[in-house]
């Protein structure tokens, strides 16, 4: 499928060895096109700094001119929520453990050739899966909230050279906030499919929905978390 973006390096099938669906592929196209420029720009910016770039404070309000700066009470009224955790912490504490519950709700273990099917077996187990699905859907809203830091202050890449540093992730998000939000909205849409399956107690539909969720997770991660090219393995 040819990209509609007209970006030559990104428009060939070779740019999509990971076979995204038609819905996800345009998002990946956009970020494959802009990522090198943004990362290069971020690298230049940070190379010019004498020390490590400070993490944006989680609850730091957007910069405003002195004339328009509201009183603290007004600012609190404008954004009544309080940003405490970073995106990394939201992912680790809210999204990841709960999407694992949704994924693991339906699975098969083939033990010595014998298939053992696991699926919610009663109302309580379906309710547990539902709670986690709702948590992920609403948790995606947390990811979209402006002003949230990427990682705790002072934290670096969890895997330097493979996964981006928080400043680089920040630069990517800031370069296209709408794209970031679109990935989060896609996550919500995919988990809503799982939620519908849960409400119908349809284990097959829930299992299929899990695949769609994985696709959008991986697509977002390859744009914002570890966008480098796939490693070339040794010839065997």
């Amino acid at each position: 499928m040819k990209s509609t973006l007209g970006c030559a390096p990104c428009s060939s099938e070779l740019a999509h060895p990971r076979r995204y669906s038609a819905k996800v592929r345009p998002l990946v196209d956009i970020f494959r096109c802009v990522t090198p420029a943004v990362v290069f720009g971020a690298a230049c910016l940070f190379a010019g700094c004498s020390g490590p770039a400070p993490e944006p404070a989680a609850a730091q309000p957007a910069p405003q001119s002195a004339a328009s700066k509201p009183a603290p009470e007004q600012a609190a009224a404008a954004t009544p929520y309080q940003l405490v955790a970073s995106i990394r912490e939201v992912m680790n504490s809210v999204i990841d453990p709960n999407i694992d519950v949704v994924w693991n709700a339906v699975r098969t273990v083939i033990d010595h050739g014998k298939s053992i099917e696991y699926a919610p077996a009663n109302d309580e187990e379906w309710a547990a899966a539902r709670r986690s699905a709702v948590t992920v859907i609403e948790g995606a809203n947390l990811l979209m909230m402006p002003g949230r830091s990427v990682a705790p202050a002072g934290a670096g890449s969890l895997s330097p050279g493979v996964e981006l540093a928080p400043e680089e992730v920040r630069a990517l998000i800031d370069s296209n906030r709408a794209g970031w939000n679109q990935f989060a909205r896609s996550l919500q849409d995919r988990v809503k499919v799982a939620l519908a399956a849960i409400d119908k107690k349809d284990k097959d539909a829930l299992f299929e929905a899990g695949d769609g969720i994985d696709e959008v997770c991986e697509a977002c991660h390859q744009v914002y978390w570890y966008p480098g090219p796939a490693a070339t393995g040794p010839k065997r």
Partner: protein
Amino acid sequence: MKMKTFLGVLVLGAFGAAKPGFAHHAFAAEYDATEPLTLTGVVVTVDWSNPHSYIHLDTKEKNGEVKHWMIEIAAPSQLLRHGLRKVDFTDGMTATVKAYQAKTDPTLANGRLLELKDGRSFYIGSVGGPNDGAETQAHPFLQ
């Protein structure tokens, strides 16, 4: 009945504990693309699950000891697209898996190609793996 439930919890807990803590990660963060492995052994269990499936393979070491490998492979939908089905895993079957060694866990690997004794082979690589041509080496149908 209570004992049966208790055993069920134990078994489920064991399988649950066997899965890595993080659902997603960059391939290069966890696996070493310069450390290819060819593992031949008995397929004990297969966890057919999202977002990754796992093959648990027992191989025999040179000293005669059995080594239990956990091999991360693709999600079920991707495995199906490449022709691999749940019924292809039979009791006591031996198989060869081409894989990459994990950087820290000596019993963990990332599978690329599954070769069965009947001559069929399947691409089992998960998203984000190295461009090593494993997909083109698969022959999912009997010759």
